[in-house]
């Protein structure tokens, strides 16, 4: 640290002001994503606070452009680290979720697990509860698209997968939600 204290102070000030201007406005988006991934208020708050500190430490790696996607990527990563540590069971399905292509996803079998899970939970009628039961990779895709209104490219950046994978995850999330939701509605209509 060969700089004078005054120089350091000015540089730090500038960096923090810039961070607060660019990154802090996305706090609600960050919290919402963390809340959907952890499914719990207190955990989401912890994760977001940690994610902001990480973001601040990595801030030099942020160049320009889409600060929101940049931040959400860190929030997501922090969530996954947190889940691995605290609820590893929820991430078990992660490795297998993309091992199916679209053709086999339409057929019953291991790929239909998400659908089967949703179908079997007949007590779940509300769509938000259905979203919560989706496997994490499908859930984050649908949340980022429908609630954060990110486009495919941004979702790919946040989740660290190719655009083609984003497309197939969204498609499968919707197919699973529709089957469960419309099935439930039909059942309600009969009674």
């Amino acid at each position, binding site marked *: 640290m060969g700089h004078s204290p005054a*120089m350091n102070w000015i540089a*730090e000030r*500038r960096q*923090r002001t810039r961070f607060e201007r660019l990154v802090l406005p996305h706090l609600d988006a960050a919290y919402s994503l963390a809340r959907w991934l952890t499914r719990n208020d207190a955990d989401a708050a912890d994760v977001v606070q940690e994610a902001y500190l990480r973001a601040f*430490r990595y801030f030099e790696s942020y160049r320009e452009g889409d600060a929101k996607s940049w931040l959400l990527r860190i929030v997501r990563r922090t969530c996954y680290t947190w889940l691995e540590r605290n609820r590893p069971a929820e991430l078990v399905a992660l490795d297998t979720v993309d091992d199916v292509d679209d053709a086999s996803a339409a057929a019953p079998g291991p790929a239909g697990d998400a659908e089967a899970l949703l179908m079997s939970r007949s007590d779940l009628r509300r769509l938000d509860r259905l979203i919560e039961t989706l496997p994490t990779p499908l859930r984050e895709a649908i949340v980022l698209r429908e609630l954060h209104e990110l486009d495919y490219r941004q979702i790919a950046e946040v989740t660290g997968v*190719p*655009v083609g994978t984003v497309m197939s995850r*969204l498609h499968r999330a919707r197919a699973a939600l529709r089957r469960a939701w419309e099935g439930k509605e039909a059942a309600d209509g009969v009674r």
Partner: protein
Amino acid sequence: MECDESRRHLDAYLDGELGEPERADLRRHLDGCAECGPEAAALERLRDGIRRAAPVYRATPALRSQIRSALRREAGGASAPARGPGWLAFAASLLIAVAVGSGGTWFIAGARQQDAIAGEVIDSHLRSLLANHLTDVASSDKHTVKPWFAGRTELSPPGVDLAAQGFPLVGGRLDLIAGKPVPALVYRAGKHIINVFVLPAAPGDHAETVTRRGYTLRHWAKGDLGYWAVSDAAPDEFAKFEDIFRAAAGG
């Protein structure tokens, strides 16, 4: 448009990711088709349902101020990594901007045309990712791909397989850019797809790398051909691809 194709494009259509003319084609199909129309309506109902049902989660004021003070501690702390001549980087970026800017003025006329092509190339790239229409001729054999284009287009792309260097050739496809059929070579970079479109070189064509709508486009010209490569692969990987492709294609 057939139902099969319509179904494949439906998500992208509703997500606003479809370029013209697919958008208009699909809309026409949905208006007339008794199967696909209701399918699209059901997907829209689902979207409305999700947006209505899902709670809006917001950070509490307490969390907001907690984060602010944590940042202040972090910035003032001994471990603050933020120190360093941020303004130097800023000054350097200004210099670069000036350099790029003055070089750029020479190419304004060509730039406008390149701009329009760039838009079409990205639309075509996205279109090709929508399942099953990646290739018209699926082959990693350049002796199959190259002849396939003959007779279908006047442009003859260099067929090179770069599998040994980590970019296997997936196949070739005929695409429409600026109203003309042009060859597209399809490569794979890990899980990412790279489309290389081959157009006639235009006067004032200059090499450039641009990011548009989040996709990276690398453009260069060689002889009478202009190349447009587009992908969402990582920038380093993509730059490496261009180098290897150019070396293999003789420039």
